[in-house]
């Protein structure tokens, strides 16, 4: 799922905000998304299997929720001119990334301040039958 999202973002984020192919690993205790501003980092997918339809005979129907978290750091003092476009592209990636198995797709993000930087933490969630 991360690969499909990266493919979509690479093709569509063409302004000053671009995706990084790297994982958001830490270097000297500092995450890459803090070191490299204006770069979208996608983490490895996390999978969770939960019951969708419980049954009495142990043939429960399960669903897998695949979550991909991402990070983007920008200068908080001056709003990036490409931000709105980039956020629209990232939201559109929810449906645009090739993923035929999911019956439900979600995207949301939150922001937080870190001194003079604003960090966008976003999350894609894909629901499919297990």
């Amino acid at each position, binding site marked *: 799922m991360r690969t499909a999202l990266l493919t979509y973002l690479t093709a569509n984020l063409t302004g000053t905000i671009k995706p990084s192919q790297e994982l958001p690993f830490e270097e000297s205790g500092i995450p890459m998304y803090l070191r490299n501003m204006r770069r979208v980092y996608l983490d490895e997918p996390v999978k969770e299997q939960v019951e*969708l*339809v*419980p*049954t*009495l*005979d*142990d*043939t429960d*129907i399960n669903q897998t929720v695949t979550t991909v978290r991402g990070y983007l750091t920008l200068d908080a003092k001056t709003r990036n001119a490409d931000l709105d476009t980039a956020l629209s592209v990232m939201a559109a990636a929810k449906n645009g990334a090739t993923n035929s198995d999911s*019956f*439900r797709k979600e995207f949301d993000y939150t922001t937080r301040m870190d001194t003079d930087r604003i960090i966008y933490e976003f999350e894609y969630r894909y629901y499919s*039958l297990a």
Partner: protein
Amino acid sequence: MAYINASSALTRVKLFIIKDADATTPGTPVEADFYTAVNATTGVVTLTSANGPIVVPGLQDVTINNANGSFRWKQLDQSGENVITTNATNSLSGNFVLDPLTFWGDGSGTLAADEGIFKLSNDRTQIAFLIAPEGVVDKTVLMGTGFISALAPTVSADSPVWVSPITVEVNGDYIKYDSTLAA
């Protein structure tokens, strides 16, 4: 206080369906019409292949209805009404996940398993059933005859698996029986 536990492999709810005409004595099914043996350790049943039983899979919930009617009358010498119960309306109802094989049948013959739940309902075929509220390892079961109704398969975008209600309209009385084929 004890309770009826339906949560373990041995005690899971089971609903068997055959065509009533295939029972040894139509109208009065017996345990062996549905299965010939039960493993007392695992609860696995050996179905009576000659009758092609359907074991309804993916049951989500089951309700055993035994709703007696009532007749009430008043007497001048009493302050309260008198009542007597009358014939019961019996039915089994529940919801289940559609399994293609048991819902549509395997199509290779005329037994219940061949025709599937949908055809039994669509053709209004009289069925015989055995409902095991606590499994079939030396537990009480109910048998009877009736007709399948209330099928209404549905699916939604949030839960893209077909599920359906099902009702067995019971024809006459339930037959209460203590299962004996486990070994």
